[in-house]
């Protein structure tokens, strides 16, 4: 099971009394693609770090699997960070080998071909462009065959065509593997394009102020007519949504 239940009462940073996260409750179903949108500095990354276990969380704040189930182990995680975070001293191939047991190294060549880096396996990250480095970090996340994939604004500062191809790739890979995805972004049209459900967060102390299912047929279009209409409708209903306000 890769259901994630988040039940945070409050989250402070060390030495800081102002909570960054307030009462935050939601769950993510198995195989669901959930996008989280919130204003800058609302603790989206902190939330992902808590889910991934990088940031400490009090017990029972984040649980995995059906709560009635005994199976509450942390699922196999993939995390695509805002920055690619590749080891500069390892080649592209070695970077991916690093996160895999030796028995699974055979699939790397195929995976690199899939992200369009078939010829760059022996290159060091600094010899690649920013977009290529991101593709490596995506390949690295998928190499481990995660049940739960966390993405933190992974397509920021990429040119539009590259970002679009990467989104397409992400959708395909997730669909084929049935991966549960939590995708953090500040771009509403990106969220509409990708997600089954969108959660909107407020300013700190952050809570979920609104959530909505994206009931649009797939495959969707990047800024297609249906998608734009849906977005416009949402924005007229809740004009302050992206700034973290609901009226």
């Amino acid at each position: 099971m890769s259901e994630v239940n988040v039940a945070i009462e409050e989250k402070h940073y060390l030495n800081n009394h102002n909570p960054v996260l307030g009462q935050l409750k939601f769950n993510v179903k198995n195989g669901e693609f959930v996008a989280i949108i919130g204003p800058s500095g609302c603790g989206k990354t902190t939330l992902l770090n808590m889910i991934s276990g990088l940031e400490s969380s009090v017990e029972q704040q984040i649980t995995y699997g059906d709560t009635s189930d005994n199976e509450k182990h942390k699922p196999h995680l993939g995390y695509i960070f805002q920055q690619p975070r590749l080891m500069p001293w390892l080649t592209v191939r070695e970077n991916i080998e690093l996160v895999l047991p030796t028995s699974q190294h055979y699939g790397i060549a195929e995976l690199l071909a899939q992200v369009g880096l078939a010829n760059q396996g022996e290159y060091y990250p600094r010899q690649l462009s920013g977009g290529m480095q991101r593709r490596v970090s995506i390949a690295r996340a998928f190499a481990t065959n995660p049940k739960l994939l966390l993405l933190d604004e992974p397509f920021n500062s990429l040119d539009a065509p590259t970002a679009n191809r990467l989104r397409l790739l992400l959708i395909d890979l997730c669909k084929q593997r049935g991966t549960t995805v939590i995708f953090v972004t500040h771009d509403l049209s990106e969220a509409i394009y990708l997600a089954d459900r969108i959660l909107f967060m407020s300013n700190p102390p952050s809570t979920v102020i609104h959530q909505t299912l994206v009931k649009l047929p797939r495959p969707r279009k990047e800024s297609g007519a249906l998608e734009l209409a849906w977005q416009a409708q949402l924005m007229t209903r809740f004009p302050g949504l992206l700034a973290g306000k609901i009226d």
Partner: protein
Amino acid sequence: MKSFFFKNYFRPKENFEKKIASQSMISKGITTGLLRYLLQRLGIIALMLLMWQGMAWFIASPDFPSLLEVVKSLHFHLSQGEMITNVIITLRRALISFIIAMLLGGLLGIIMGLNRLVNKLTDSLLIIMLNIPALVTILLCYVWFGLVESAAIAAVVINKMPTVVVMIREGARVVDKDLLAVAKVYQLSARHTFFKVFLPQLYPFIIASARSGLSLIWKIVLVVELLGRSDGVGFALNAMFQFFDIAGILAYTLAFVAVIMLIEAAIFKPFDKLVARGNCCE
């Protein structure tokens, strides 16, 4: 995994053949390049040797032997065989204490760099260790442990270790936490995290302390030998000093510097390349 890899979203960029072609062009110029390199490196040395010879002729004093006399002395000591033995003995002491100082210093440096409390508790001790004169530690080691080999090695290690600690600690302090987070998320084993993620970030600091370390260590080893050993370069230099054999002293210096330069070229240069990998920007 297989069924996912049939679509191709990205066309591979094909400018790598060009790069390979330009590399073979470079190899033609390698012989002239080597010549130029040697000229650049050795030119200044040749000039200094010439000046030395000229000054020796001008001064004409037994305290300032000419280059030719030093070379003659070098040849004499080499043919006697005792020079090679002494150099090897000194080199052995230097390398043993070098390895111990690097390992211990590296370990302590990492611990101090990572743990703020340990750092606070031991920082003043470190400053004291850094500032105790080499001569004092050498004398104390000989007095407390006797005129034995282990005392000599210990004295050198105690002198060198604090500087290693200081450098490695700086390295451990600036380790990229983001990369360690990657290791944690992907649940790498402790061994993998240390050797593939943590340690490579320290390589530049390790290299820097090793480079400065070797030169410092062999200078201290000579003093240690002079004060309490009956073999090695330091002992030989002392013996020659008793007879005012200036040419012999210079011959020994020449021989040892040559050996150190050889070590530099044979060990540190290739290691530099290893560290630089992934840092080139094209």
